């Protein structure tokens, strides 16, 4: 499905050419500038490994794509470089509860 085994380890991973998000593959620090897939992203906040940033602007209602497949829809407009998570990405299937309020 994905093959990220080649290429340098930059801190962000673009899993599939169609994807409009990139994934942190190490902890990232607020303010870091990272070049990925013809874009330059300023990391908006400290981020743990595995979290997602928007590669480009995503309009409310648009599919968020990872592995080249939709993982939900943008629940509001998302700007390039924004953290993409429970606050702006909604499942088309099951409501995800932020149980401890720690994932905003």
């Amino acid at each position: 499905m994905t093959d990220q085994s080649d290429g340098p380890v930059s801190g962000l991973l673009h899993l599939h050419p169609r994807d409009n998000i990139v994934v942190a593959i190490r902890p990232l620090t607020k303010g870091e500038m990272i070049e990925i897939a013809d874009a330059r992203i300023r990391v908006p906040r400290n981020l743990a490994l595995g979290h997602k940033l928007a590669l480009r602007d995503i309009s409310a209602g648009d599919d968020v794509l990872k592995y080249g497949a939709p993982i939900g829809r943008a629940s509001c407009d998302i700007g390039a470089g924004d953290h993409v998570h429970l606050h702006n990405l909604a499942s088309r299937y099951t409501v995800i509860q932020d149980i401890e309020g720690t994932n905003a």
Partner: protein
Amino acid sequence: MTGWPRADGRKGIRNTVLVAYLVECAHHVCTKIARPFDETDVQVIGFSGCFPSDYGQEMMEALCTHPNVGAVQLVSLGCENFRKQELADLVRASGRPVNLVTIQSTGGTAAAVAQGREWVTAQVDALRDAPKVAMEASELVIGTICGGSDATSGLTGNPAAGRAFDRFVSEGATCIFEETGELIGCEHIMADRVSDPALRPEIIATVEKAARYYAQMGYGSFSNGNALGGLSTIEEKSLGAYAKSGSSPISGIIKPAQRAPGGGLYLLDVVPDGAPKFGFPNINDTAEIIELIACGAHAVIFVTGRGSVVGSAISPVIKVCANPETYDRMAADMDVNAGRILRGAATLDEVGDEIHDQIIALGQGAQSKSEALGHVEFVLTYKTAAGPEPGCHV
């Protein structure tokens, strides 16, 4: 590899004596019977419920006649509803020694423990010299599960497990992936992979059933730890989980305690048909592992990102750690460090080969980390039975 031959033609890579309670009231006696023995030799399983359960009966039958099992000590309180004689007869017919101790008629806890322990001791001694025969990879049944997932699970561990599955399928082994509730969002992609077009609507229906079931439960299969690890939706988690199925054609759908009809890749449908009746399909990872084992799995590949430590009764669990930070903290629990892919230190193919080779090593006498640590987790709860036609969905 070598394995212990069974009367039904299957071979075991372990030769364990099971001590099985047929109601919770007999659980303590089983624990006491097993206490002097190493987990490698003697393991406790059982069904806690007192009310009748066709699912519980089918699962216990499948587990007590699993190829990794050499002998079975059944422990009954005496008044529970479990059809114990039927189970004992079935185990005996499978060619395995079986002993049934009923606590009420034996004279209580101490007498039941003494009688059970004497029999189990004799079985452990007898099994020590049991002859083994050559075993091929094509004779293996392997399950895969992911638990304690984070976003690395879908980046490293699951795709690497998928590579291992592809190798095993090409070698003729039977590979089983599962948790349709964690495949929500992948059903159409998955349906394009069937070997028989007739299976296509069944794949979609199976996942839609899971989505409905979880919606009625009020929760998806999604934990706060998943979100802390960066996963935002069930679809995202699903696509990451789906990667562990590899890229082989899907040969069929099986139900818990059913055996696949042959080699190939099978989807285990863990969600019961009909309206939710007994709660969540599987209350934790161990319940899923036990269902894979009840389908005959000799070993289970467990991909974890957050860091699960579980093993299992009956069949060894190979722990594939997807997250390099987790691996650094918990290396003693992890068999494979798939997280090094993120650090550029290995490729998916290399880690896939490592998983494959560690499974083969289990059949050559090696122990998994969770086995060596004595993990023998077991969970079996109520569920709607799959029905009387094994393999009918294939």
